[in-house]
């Protein structure tokens, strides 16, 4: 090999050629960056168009009454009261069923599971469930909860169905949050003689809370807009009353009857209004759609903010 003087000089001599080549390459960069930005924008623009479209159609309904009124045959006085209360109650069941199970499963997979066919089996199942279409969960719920366990078309059924739906999301986000904790922290705890559960409960769960919460919020924001599985369990119903209150003024102050109550939720109410002949109802539907998007936007926003804060606060 000869790195001769002449060759080196040639780089300098060709500097103009090199520079024009670099300019060409950088132009390609610019072109691609433009295309990339457009590719990103397609999704965002669609979302924006959709949202603006819904807001424009639905703006006459953006008032407090829309939230405090029950559904009605008169579009103008029909409101979302039973729907948003139903959504909150269903989400509560979803949260209470998916989070403990999902977090425990995530802990098991990351901290306990031996690396063998057994954990592979669980892992494959989790990643498959994450990709199972929501309508299949609807069929599962129809066959298992509605008919098999005879839970009927209740808040409990819907909450459990959506709980199953977001379970993989919770498991995956739990695992990711746990993976973010450095091995060094775990080893430090083990090295002073902590048992596995002490390590997990004193450290792993504590330091991954934020990450888990982020995942749960994102999962719930998806669940809140789910329509297909709820339709499948057959919950298209006119509900102009609220379920029994979960909290009562007589001991034991808790009342679980609401779990068995009939219900409606936001996307179902939207769907119901959309299928009305009277166009005035379509305004209600648009307003509801805009509200659902806004709610998911807020939830995702919270998740983004949380994630940002966690990153900022904890530097391992």
């Amino acid at each position, binding site marked *: 090999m000869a790195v001769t003087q002449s060759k080196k000089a040639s780089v300098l001599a060709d500097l103009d050629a090199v520079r024009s080549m670099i300019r060409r390459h950088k132009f390609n960069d610019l072109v691609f960056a433009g295309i990339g930005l457009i590719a990103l924008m397609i999704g965002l623009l669609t979302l924006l168009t959709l949202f603006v479209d819904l807001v424009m159609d639905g703006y006459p309904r953006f008032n407090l009454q829309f939230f405090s009124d029950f*559904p009605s*045959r008169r579009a103008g006085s029909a409101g979302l009261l039973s729907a948003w209360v139903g959504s909150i109650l269903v989400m509560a069941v979803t949260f209470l069923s998916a989070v403990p199970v999902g977090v425990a499963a995530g802990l098991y997979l990351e901290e306990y599971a031996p690396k063998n066919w057994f954990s592979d089996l669980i892992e494959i199942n989790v990643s498959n469930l994450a990709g199972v279409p929501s309508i299949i969960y609807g069929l599962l719920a129809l066959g298992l909860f509605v008919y098999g366990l005879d839970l009927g078309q209740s808040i409990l059924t819907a909450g459990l169905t959506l709980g199953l739906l977001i379970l993989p999301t919770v498991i995956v986000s739990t695992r990711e949050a746990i993976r973010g904790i450095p091995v060094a922290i775990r080893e430090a705890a083990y090295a002073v003689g902590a048992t596995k559960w002490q390590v997990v409960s004193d450290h792993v769960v504590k330091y991954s809370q934020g990450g888990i919460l982020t995942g749960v919020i994102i999962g719930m924001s998806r669940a809140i807009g789910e329509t297909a599985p709820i339709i499948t369990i*057959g919950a*298209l*119903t*006119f509900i*102009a009353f609220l379920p029994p209150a979960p909290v009562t003024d007589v001991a034991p102050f808790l009342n679980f009857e609401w779990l068995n109550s*009939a219900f409606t939720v936001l996307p179902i109410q939207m769907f119901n209004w959309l*299928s009305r*002949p009277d166009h005035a109802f379509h305004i209600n539907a648009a307003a509801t759609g805009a509200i659902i998007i806004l709610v998911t936007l807020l939830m995702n926003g919270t998740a983004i903010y949380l994630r940002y804060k966690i990153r900022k606060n904890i530097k391992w």
Partner: protein
Amino acid sequence: EKIIKVDGSSTVYPITEAMAEEFQKATKTNVTVGESGTGAGFKKFCRGETDISNASRPILQKEMDACKEAGIQYIELPVAFDALTVVVNHKNDFVKSLSVAELNAIWKSGSSVKNWKQVNPAYPDKALALYGPGTASGTFDYFTEAINGKAKSSRTDYTPSEDDNVLVQGVAGNAGGLAYFGYAYYEENKDKLRAVPISAKAGSPAVMPSPEAVKDGTYQPLARPLFIYVNATAAAFKPEVKAFVNFYLENAPKLVAEVKYVPLPADDYDAVKAHFKALKPGTGFGGKNEIGIKVKDLINRIK
């Protein structure tokens, strides 16, 4: 807490929903109204899961058997009329009317009509696009019975939807489109669709669907009565159910019209009220749909 459970036909749904809304306001009794379709409604009704079943066609033999087996008795109450409406795209100006025979040619099972020209040589050479309700609906059952002579007997290569607005969109978006559904959906979409006058027999005058034509019995054979079936035991022993049905019949003339259906003539409602008061169980149909029957005759049949 007392809850009155209603399920069944999505066609009858708007009427019952209006009743439920007003009844709840008046009495603070909760009413749920489902819209899972006439057939599904009867299924639940005959399992005793609901107190009242909405129906856009009479109860069928199968369903009667199921109810009987479960020991469920029912009171059959006609509550309103509906006019099944055949619509085409509003740009379609060549179809002046359709006869039952022509509709049958279009919709019969195995029909190969794919072009307006095949319906009538005078029509332009334009592809025919068909939209109709899904098979679970009473509308489908009634229409196929009235036009094809046998319930559920229909050609299958059309776009079915349980959501009538989807059908509206279908015809509105297709110049060669044709669909049938309840009158209310036409009423609300007059700007996008055109209703077609129907002649019962070749040569007889074609009649536009309208409340008047339904009431005076000239819109045939697509005018149909709508029913609610009340669980007889509930009607007798649950005061809230009884109250609700009475409320229903009392307010029918006003509220039925308000939700764009055709109320029965006033004396018919009186007959129905009397019928309910007597708590007479049974059906006037004998397990088969019948086209063009009068309400009075119907009630008189139930003894």
